[in-house]
């Protein structure tokens, strides 16, 4: 490690005199306005501190569209320098197959155990004693976003929890306001998990996601969740869906729609669009009902590069790994992204009202999200089921519960 420090010091010292800098290709799927601004913060710090070039390869389509491209590039022998993926099991087999770089030695002197906010986060990165990824933020799906403008129009106070929100739907519909905004495609995926944590509670999440207990799905607690999905279905229709989650955020700001369940990264977009929490929109963590958030997030992976790669690029990987979890980069990135930093030791006085609420809940510990405990195969099956259920009124709540249970039963 000393050697590394010397090399790094020399690299910094000679920065001015050497014309050569490594180019490191970084893939990610942060393409919405808020997300792109956040990843630019990482790029800025990386380029300033190392003099290397950050080659930005943004991929469209989020986890469903971009993930396959990233995975097939790594399997196909054309790895990128570094890549973002969701913290969880998506890269599990890539790690097992030895396609990812072991980061243990690179971060050994940083003593990461001491500052990571929750050791659970590092769990998916560990395999046979090695450390194969670095979680860089904590994201949570568990947010109900409400439009202040919409509630002003109908002359009601902004709801403080899910039940009040549901009760306000008839008045909203009467005023021609869309009760629930929804982007097409994947944004529906996270909603059952949010309802499960908020309405069903901690025990239900643990039983379904961690223990994969199909009987819990068939039980009365999950039924409430399914019924909530059924209610959502009654106010959502294909004609009213907008192309992306960012558009749903704009509907909230303009007051065309009253509410939306979406992850905290929506906040990055709301801020870019000029929204102020508490004034233009309200945020209710865990639907205003629960006390714990389900936590997922993003991690950075560093694929093993093929033999003959320029050593400067391999070194750039190491530099980036250390920078991503450094206090400076963590603070800049997460304030823009709207996510919670993975470090406990940084000053978050710059955090806005919503983030402060989240940080308070973070002290109660994180619930494992679907990303953590379910394989991508199982997640995909649940995603198909949810898409079908929302669009097709012929599927009864009973069918939904039964099919959900079957998938959980076969889950691995």
């Amino acid at each position, binding site marked *: 490690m000393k050697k590394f420090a010397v090399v790094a010091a020399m690299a910094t010292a000679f920065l001015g005199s050497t014309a050569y800098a490594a180019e490191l290709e970084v893939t990610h799927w942060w393409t919405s306005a808020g997300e792109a601004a956040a990843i630019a913060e990482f790029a800025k710090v990386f380029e300033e501190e190392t003099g290397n070039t950050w080659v930005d390869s943004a991929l469209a389509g989020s*986890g*469903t569209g971009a*993930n*396959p491209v990233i*995975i*097939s590039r790594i*399997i196909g022998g054309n790895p990128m320098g570094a890549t973002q993926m969701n913290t969880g099991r*998506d890269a*599990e*087999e*890539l790690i097992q*197959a030895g396609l990812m770089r072991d980061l243990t030695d690179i971060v050994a002197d940083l003593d990461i155990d001491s500052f990571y906010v929750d050791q659970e986060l590092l769990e998916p990165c560990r395999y046979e004693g090695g450390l194969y990824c670095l979680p860089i933020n904590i994201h949570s799906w568990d947010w109900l976003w409400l439009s202040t403008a919409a509630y002003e129009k109908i002359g009601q106070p902004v709801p403080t929890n899910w039940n009040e929100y549901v009760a306000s739907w008839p008045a909203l519909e009467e005023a021609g306001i869309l009760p629930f905004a929804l982007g*097409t*495609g994947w944004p529906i995926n996270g909603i059952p998990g949010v309802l499960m944590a908020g309405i069903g509670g901690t025990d239900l999440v643990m039983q379904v996601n961690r223990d994969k207990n199909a009987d819990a799905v068939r039980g009365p607690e999950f039924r409430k969740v399914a019924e909530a999905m059924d209610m959502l279905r009654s106010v959502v*229709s*294909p*004609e009213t*869906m907008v192309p992306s989650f960012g558009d749903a955020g704009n509907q909230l700001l303009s007051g065309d729609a009253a509410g939306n369940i979406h992850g905290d990264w929506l906040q990055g977009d709301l801020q870019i669009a000029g929204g102020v929490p508490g004034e233009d929109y309200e945020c209710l963590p865990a639907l205003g009902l629960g006390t714990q958030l389900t936590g997922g997030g993003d991690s950075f992976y560093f694929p093993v590069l093929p033999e003959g790669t320029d050593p400067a690029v391999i070194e750039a990987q190491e530099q980036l790994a250390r920078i991503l979890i450094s206090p400076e980069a963590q603070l800049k990135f997460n304030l823009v992204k709207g996510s919670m930093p993975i470090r406990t030791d940084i000053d978050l006085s710059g955090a806005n009202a919503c983030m402060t609420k989240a940080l308070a809940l973070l002290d109660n510990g994180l619930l494992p999200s679907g990303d953590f405990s379910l*394989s*991508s*195969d199982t*997640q*995909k*099956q649940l995603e*198909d089921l949810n*898409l*079908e*259920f*929302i*669009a*097709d009124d012929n599927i009864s709540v009973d069918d939904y519960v039964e099919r959900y249970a079957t998938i959980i039963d*076969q889950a691995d």
Partner: protein
Amino acid sequence: MADIATQSDQVAGDSSRPGPFRRLFLHNLSAKIAAIPMVATVLIIFVGCTIWTVYYSFTNSRLLPRNDFVGFDQYERLFATSRWNVSITNLLLYGSMSLVLTLTLGFLLAVLMDQKVRFESAFRTIMLYPFALSFIVTGLVWQWIMNPTLGLQGTMRGLGWAGFTFDWISNPRMVLFALLIAGLWQGVGFCMILMLAGLRGVDEEIWKAARVDGIPTWRTYISVVLPMMRGVLVTAVVIIGSGIVRLYDLVVALTNGGPGISSEVPAKYVYDYMFGGGNIGQGLAASTMMLLTVLIIMVPWAYLEFGGKGRRS
């Protein structure tokens, strides 16, 4: 294949010709050497990969192939999945409508084009132009046109026709027809060109004879010209058919399978589970079923066309 077998049987029986070995390997040697790369490609890429696909569809391979056999488990799960069943139904409906309509419209347009119209080449260019666009572009263009708020419906309502409705793309019952419109717009021109080439290949003497016999023009087209265009028809069916089975990019660009799962197709299922779900076994089981479907249609037809009595020799 059966054709070659019959031929070599005949040759083996003829003692004045070289033996089967020499006939198989040495006759026309340079041509055979020249064909080796193609034969190797077919054997390794097509046959080899097909065998690989079927083999691993019986394993529980996830992100990476594994030799852990699970029998027909992947197939059982496949047919218990409503998305797969919807995909198959969609493909059958879309496929039959697309095949019939492309051929009919293509033939009709070709006949119209064959009436020695002025500016024929200009019309031909216009009709063939959509074919120069990829399915992704086609899908995006039609997505905008058919979008209820931004496209045709919105424009007509904006012009004052408040009752105008064209929301097929967001209507689960009509979304297949939305796909069909885009697919036909893209594919009919090419079919027309093929048919036109076929029509031009029919000898002028045939037309004169038909006219002498006083046969009406429409009757000549259907009973005389169409059967003579058999080769072109077969080519068109094969090209359109293969396009239907691998239907993927149009769906992704136009509807992405939605609303809900109402416009899903098998090829998309394969891709989504193989890469998105990281489940190779399931994806390969689905692609094996696609292969099987094609074989069920192709084998009897190929047997009738090329097999039997070796008609071509």
